């Protein structure tokens, strides 16, 4: 869409400005049909149709989004599914109109939202290059000039003259990506498409993105692959439910996002726990000893669901004893989120040091404290086992959905164990 009103100026090296942007959608089909008809008739008659307020069953998919993008800058946009990232991209490219706010940009915008838009299966690779290139805004002469480069980048070999219905899905995606990256717009929007193809193609794509930036073009990059964001972007915006949660330096933003994801995951799991899905599996022998609850405590003894890296970790287990017990023996096990590692830790009370004998009926809480845990950033689950220490009888054994998260340290860490490390580089052969 070309501007009908005179366009404002963008200062200095700003290439894109998004101001107080709002977009709403409707969540029921019937209302969507009704509003669609009513709004299109009103728009033709010149009657305002309340884009600035929500009607029944409408919701804000984007709410008060604002940022600027400078020449040569690479901005990563991250957020959970449904946070509004792709909607934002569609508004910036002009596919959807905003309901409130304004977008202004200088030059040509290119969007890599889906590769291979408009491909026809019965046309050859070469014919589809021209078709898709034209759809993406390239002129025939421009495509002629870049044809060899596109073919080389897509690496589709002898299949160029074959209908693309004969291509593998990987080849099709490679061709679509190759065409799109050769459009060379002033601002490139990339939505989760760099993870296509094999490793060699992904590396080639990343190199192409870096070359693109080196030419002082601006880049907006949406991905769930945080490593790609870290490599490509200087700045990130974290989106959540259509709002901006963070806009700043990418290394700080990525750590915040990792922690946010873990907190959301733990909150979701613990909502399940609160709604009654406490156990995945439980084996209890009568009601002599009954499990009540378990979880994490902070130093003040308050229940928490998250703990920092290398901090003190306190896990409690509450239980009721109905008959006096000769000796109680506990095991608390920590599992990773995928639950595919049986135990990261399995701690039992050492009977030589912490022996719990002759326990009378009542409600109890046992707490195990790890002075400095070495769990890597992630989400963990806790299992328990309560036994009779004297006879070895099992009272209650549960695989629970109770979870907690370990926040990311100030630098990126992968894996399930954290450690303090140092690196050296030595030249062995000149």
């Amino acid at each position, binding site marked *: 869409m070309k*501007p009908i009103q005179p366009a404002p100026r963008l200062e200095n090296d700003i290439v894109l400005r998004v101001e107080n942007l709002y977009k709403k959608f409707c969540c029921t089909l019937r209302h969507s049909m009704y509003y*669609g008809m009513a*709004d*299109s008739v009103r*728009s033709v008659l010149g009657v305002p149709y309340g*884009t600035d307020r929500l009607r029944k069953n409408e919701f804000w998919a984007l709410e008060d989004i604002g940022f600027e993008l400078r020449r040569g800058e690479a901005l990563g946009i991250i957020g959970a599914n449904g946070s509004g990232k792709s909607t934002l991209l569609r508004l910036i490219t002009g596919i959807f109109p905003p309901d409130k*706010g304004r977008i*202004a940009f200088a030059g040509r915008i290119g969007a890599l939202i889906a590769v291979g838009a408009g491909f026809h299966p019965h*046309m050859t690779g070469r014919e589809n290059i021209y078709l898709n290139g034209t759809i993406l805004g390239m002129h025939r002469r421009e495509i002629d000039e870049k044809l060899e480069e596109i073919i080389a980048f897509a690496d589709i070999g002898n299949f160029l003259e074959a209908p693309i219905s004969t291509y593998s899905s990987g080849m099709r995606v490679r061709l679509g990506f190759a065409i799109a990256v050769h459009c060379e717009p*002033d601002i490139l929007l990339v939505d989760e498409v760099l993870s296509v193809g094999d490793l060699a193609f992904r590396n080639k794509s990343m190199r192409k993105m870096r070359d693109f930036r080196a030419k002082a073009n601006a880049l907006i990059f949406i991905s769930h692959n945080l490593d790609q964001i870290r490599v490509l972007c200087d700045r990130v915006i974290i989106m959540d439910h259509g709002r901006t949660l963070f806009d700043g330096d990418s290394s700080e933003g990525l750590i915040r996002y990792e922690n946010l994801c873990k907190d959301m995951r733990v909150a979701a799991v613990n909502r399940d726990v609160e709604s009654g899905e406490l156990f995945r599996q439980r084996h209890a022998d009568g009601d002599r000893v009954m499990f009540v609850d378990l979880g994490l405590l902070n130093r003040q003894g308050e229940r928490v669901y998250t703990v920092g890296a290398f901090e003190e970790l306190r896990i409690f287990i509450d239980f009721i004893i109905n008959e006096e017990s000769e000796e109680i023996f506990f095991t608390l096990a920590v599992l990773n989120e995928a639950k595919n590692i049986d135990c990261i830790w399995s701690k039992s009370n050492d009977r030589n040091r912490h022996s719990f004998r002759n326990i009378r009926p009542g409600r109890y809480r046992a707490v195990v404290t790890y002075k400095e845990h070495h769990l890597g950033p992630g989400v963990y689950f806790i299992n328990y086992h309560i036994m009779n220490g004297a006879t070895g009888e099992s009272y209650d054994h549960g695989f629970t959905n109770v979870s907690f998260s370990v926040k990311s340290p100030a630098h990126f860490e992968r894996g399930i164990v954290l450690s303090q490390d140092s690196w050296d580089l030595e030249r062995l052969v000149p």
Partner: protein
Amino acid sequence: MHSEITVYEPRQRSRAGMFAVLRVMAADVVRCRELIWQLFKRDFLMQYKKSFLGLGWIVLAPLLGFASWVFMNAAGVLNPGTMDFPYPAFVLISTTLWGFFANCVTAASRTLKAGQGFIDQVQYPHHTLLVKELAQAYANFLISFVFVALLLICFRVDLQVLFWAAPLLVLPMLAAAAAIGLTASIITVVAMDIEKALGYLLSFMMFLTPVVYTAEDRTGIVKAILALNPMTYLHGCARDLIVFGSAAGADMFLGLTLAAFLLLLLSMKWFYVAEEKVIEKMI
């Protein structure tokens, strides 16, 4: 880096006047002519690529319709009225013209759906799809027309000079069809009812229009309906000029031609303003 600044704001298109909209649309069509050509090539040539008869389908479809009308006439179930022209030739030309009108309505009503695969992925002016769809319908008509002309020449049918003006005489029908189809294309995105109804309506309208019969000799309510039906003039006059070299109600034909083009301009404005609001319903 290009210095041109583009701005997107709410209700941007509603604020534009009629002439501004038409100017923008015309400029977009010129600017996107390569895109129109590529999409035309893709859809026109490719629709017959995986077919043994290929482009032969363009002439086969009207021929089958023509054969059924000729059969019904021969069987005496049809009363086409009196005419100084061989009925088979008359019905062949007439159904070809009606087929063109119906194809144009259907094609224009597909304007937004034609880009469904990439309309929410890439930004481009969607009215270019209307041009592509109509060009495709017009190309189909031209192929049919050449075929009909060859057939009539082979059977030594006496053709009027105005027969060769058929590609121009059908333009008022194209305008009316585009206006109807364009309006329908917006509604179809929101609710599918129009798309379903359109097929039935076109068949029904064909019987209310003197396509396989002549308007003369009709009496009573049929005469009144035919007189009120704009297609009696847009289709009937064009056909009579092509077949007989002259037509009754030529003044109505001219008036309705003007109305059809005005309607098209209004529907283009409606499309331009309303489509940005309905695109998001396509997802």
